[in-house]
């Protein structure tokens, strides 16, 4: 019902918008509709060339809780703020990272570290939201995340599988479909080892299953004759899709049992490690966007006890993922992102912990044309101030979006007719592209 009505609104909106576009935006002709119910219009020209050979898909690793920059990718050897953590050399010349990440160190030739991240959102919820959507969290609208923007502009690659998948135990997901149509919502997976929920026959043989389907079809025949409506038909095709997925070879994408024990071990048997392995499988099967979450970075207390534990999990999975992608030749068109909402106070607090610190932190990019083996931006000796090439969450997301071939200047209107762009006018860091 709602969908039908939205279509009705859509008609008026479209007509209205073409008028509005003329009067407010100075554009006479609407560009091609991107699809769905939101409307696109040209925004300010950023003067960027289109990305040549953009990334095909993206694995987005999110460090929930605020990953300490000082103890991971922005170490300050010798400074009292550093605490007991040493720096180690990496596979990239002149790039040092924390001793907590020895395996990752061997992959740094593939990775660009951005040390000059700086945000204004110092609370988890707000910071997480901003990192995922490029917009401040508001009570009046939900903004789409990168996966949804990617699907909006470039569509799915494999019609049998969802275009975007979220892996993690979080109770809430930021960066979902936002105000876009609900079909762009990521499929959420709590347990990577459980496969796609409800995709297996339950206590019934294949023959009986088919028999039941047939029975349901017969019982519905009269209803279908009477109500030949879009919403009713949508349920037919939904059943077709569901049954097709159940019998599709693509279902294997969700099945970690197809991986050797050795491979699983390499990624780590924890949910994050298994999630990264699943992400690799999904991308192999042409899922566009996969996010994997690792929580536990909120180290207000016992930072130097808790961070090494988190880092161990990250280190194993992240290094396995990068080397795996590289070995399979997938790193050429798959971008890997490692992001978080903020860093942590360089000064160690009384509980041997570090508190929230949005002013300076680090995020990473790798693959699909990202320059490897570099550090971009700089913080002061104390780790407290960004002193070179500040990058906002919007800029960081613009860099991701640009590398995914998304038009940064194309405005999409929400159903309430407010204008939005993929990275909220952030500017991509062009120096990071090779």
């Amino acid at each position, binding site marked *: *019902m709602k969908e039908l009505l939205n279509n009705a609104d859509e008609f008026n909106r479209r007509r209205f918008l073409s008028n509005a576009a003329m009067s407010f935006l100075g554009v006479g002709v609407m560009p091609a509709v991107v699809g769905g119910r939101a409307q696109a219009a040209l925004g300010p020209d950023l003067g960027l060339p289109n990305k040549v050979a953009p990334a095909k898909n993206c694995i987005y690793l999110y460090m929930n809780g605020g990953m300490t920059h000082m103890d991971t990718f922005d170490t300050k050897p010798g400074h009292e703020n550093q605490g007991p953590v040493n720096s180690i050399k990496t596979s990239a010349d002149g790039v040092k990272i924390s001793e907590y990440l020895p395996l990752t160190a061997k992959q740094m030739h593939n990775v660009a570290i951005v040390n000059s991240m700086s945000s204004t959102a110092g609370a988890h919820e707000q910071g997480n939201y901003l990192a995922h959507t490029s917009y401040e969290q508001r009570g*009046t609208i939900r903004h789409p995340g990168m996966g949804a923007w990617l699907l909006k502009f470039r569509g799915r690659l494999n019609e049998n599988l969802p275009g975007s998948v979220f892996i993690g135990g979080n109770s809430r997901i930021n960066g979902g479909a936002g105000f876009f149509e609900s079909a762009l919502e990521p499929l959420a997976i709590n347990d990577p080892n459980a496969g796609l929920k409800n*995709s297996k026959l339950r206590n019934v043989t294949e023959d*009986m299953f088919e028999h039941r389907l047939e029975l*349901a079809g017969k019982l519905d025949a009269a209803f279908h004759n009477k109500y030949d409506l879009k919403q009713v038909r949508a349920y037919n095709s939904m059943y077709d899709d569901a049954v097709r997925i*159940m019998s599709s070879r693509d279902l294997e994408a969700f099945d970690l049992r197809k991986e050797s024990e050795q491979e699983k071990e390499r990624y780590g048997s924890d949910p994050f490690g298994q999630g990264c392995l699943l992400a690799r499988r999904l991308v192999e099967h042409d899922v566009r966007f996969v996010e994997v979450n690792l929580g536990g970075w909120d180290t207000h207390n*016992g930072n*130097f006890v808790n961070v090494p534990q988190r880092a161990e999990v990250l280190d194993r999975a992240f290094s396995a993922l990068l080397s795996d992608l590289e070995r399979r030749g997938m790193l050429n068109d798959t971008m890997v992102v490692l992001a978080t909402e903020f860093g942590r106070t360089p000064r160690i607090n009384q509980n041997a912990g570090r508190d929230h610190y949005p002013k300076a932190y680090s995020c990473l990019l790798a693959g699909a044309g990202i320059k490897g083996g570099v550090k971009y931006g700089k913080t002061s000796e104390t780790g407290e101030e960004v002193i070179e090439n500040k990058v906002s969450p919007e800029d960081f997301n613009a860099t991701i979006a640009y590398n995914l071939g998304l038009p940064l200047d194309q405005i999409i209107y929400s159903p309430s007719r407010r204008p939005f762009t993929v990275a909220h006018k952030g500017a991509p860091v062009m120096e990071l592209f090779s």
Partner: protein
Amino acid sequence: MKLSAIVLFLVAACAGFAAAANQDASGKIEQYLERGRQEMGVEANPPIGDEVFLRRIYLDVIGRVPTLDEAKSFLASADGDKRSKLIDELLESEGYVSHFFNYWSDILRVNESIGNNRLPASAHALWLKQALRSNKPYDEFVRDMITARGYIWENGAVGYYQRDRGMQLDNMSNTVRIFLGTRLECAQCHNHPFDKWTQMDYYEMAAFSYGMDARDYNSPNRQLVSDYQREMQKKGKMSGDRKDGKKYSAFQASRRVVSDLYNPVRYIASTETERDVRLPHDYQYGDAKPKDEVEAAAMFGTEVDLDKYDSRIEAYGDWFTSPDNPRFTLVIANRLWKEVMGVGLIEPVDELMDATEATNPQLMEFLVQRMKALDYDMKAFLRELYNTPTYQREADDEEILPGMVYYFPGPKLRRLSAEQMWDSLVALAVPEPDFYMPNLSNRLRQIDEARQIYNNLEDRSKEDFLDLVKKGTEIYAVNFNKTEELQKKFNELRDAKKEDEAREVGRELSGLRNDSRRRLQKLAQGDREMRGDPDALYAVFGMDGEQMKKEDIVTSLPQAPKPEADPEMSKEEKKRFYDEMGKEITEWRQAASQLMRASELPSPAPRGHFLREFGQSDREVIENASDSASVPQALNLLNGTVTETLTNRNSVLQQNLSKAETPEEKVESIYLSMLTRLPDESEMNLLLDEVKEHGAAGYENIVWALVNSQNFRFVQ
């Protein structure tokens, strides 16, 4: 013009004896609808029979299908007035509370999943149910929320401001959108591009409620601590002496102590402060300067004379909910119309502009007048709509194409909402589905516990309170120093590769802060009993009245008696029989612990829950529920546990099935339970064949097929 004269006459005639005028009003509504249809050459759909009516009215008023007994008793009744009577009965039932709670929590974004918001959201939910149960008039209902002040254990409506804590401007935009159907949010940053609102209009409206404060409340005792800390700072006593001669930072420790003391009760209240709203720093229009203070003024309707009020929020409440407010009554009349018929007379319901016109303006005006004449009695208003012949016509089978106007040949065909779907399954499985509330007492207990903690802190004398802070500070300081030592030890152990010992120290280190907190709590508690008491709150939340009493609440499900194995069975057969039964009991226990109505589960249900898969709102933005089809829905019904639960020996459906004797009776029992109708002849033949072919498994197949059928998913 002639029409409005009729309207006025009618209103005058109706006022005062609303209930008696019920049928007249329904008839009048039908006349307006008929006129609208005639003008457009649209024919009304045929009236529906009792079976279709029964299913529809149950789903629409109480949000679930009728039980087998409920269905049988209605269908068997020969009373010529039975439909009207059923409407009355359902409106007065607890099921109405449950269903309309779902409706309103989608609009109001009642969200128990945000960490710190759980408690106030929970109180808001309980308050909302109480308001529906007592049929609080709509104007009071809105007024209570938008002027809400006090503590959650006395006034759950403060959850309305807690919901948008720290986002007061957004709260105002939402309030205007929900209750006045008007979009102001664009004007927060600049003049509205598509409507007439200026940024100044926005801030003038915001000025009414900007003083509402739902953040950390300011208690006198808390103030004391600030004074104490300031004094410490002044005297340079930033650190204190420990017995062993070492120093500790008393200042930092005392801050931690206070925040830990108040943490459990940080978000429990809303108050009105004197805070003024100011224009943003980049205000760009000529009528004022950036950062200027703004005086409250109404966006339309009657001007507000602030001098008459001590409180801006009271002025806001009066203006907002006045019958003279040009959009207040219109919005609720149109909303409830849409809820009943499936399509609003104005669509969308919350984007009104000056030029907005209803598809049937006379009817819209009539409904507005009815709402006023009924003194905003929502049940009475709904009753008039449910009693119209149009509501009781066949659901419409035409597609509404973009740009088309709907002339109401009947209500629209609708998919069951996520909650209707879930609640119907619950009603098929458990007895007394509307009163099964196993989580209720725990919710009340938590709210009461907050009350006790709060009172314990606030009831102290100045000296007593400062003493508590000082003692707490000492506890914390000692642990701070311990932290340093342990960290040193941890690093040494790690360097020496003594992983196990290091882990042990690590655990101790991580636990130190909890240890401080626990000891502080004990200190604060003294010998007081701080356990929350749900009994203290049943009455506050309206569970001691006619419609519902505490005694009505069901907290556990009955289990069918265990059948004995056939003595003729072999030992192995018996073992298999009992194993099977054991498995069934376990499955039932697991399912039953969750089988309560959606309104009794957390709002919203956790991610991945059946409800969320079928489109329950995530409560993030207004009216975010969805009825779109998705693959996980199909997979859930095809391969999930629904059929298993419904065919469990303990489920109501299965119990009824076992009482029926012949295959015909069994098939009828399933049909009546699930689709609220008897099978027609061809269906019966098909299903009898099914049972003949597959025996007992045939019934399971039928249940499965119906769970997966369109007949079940849609309200015809």
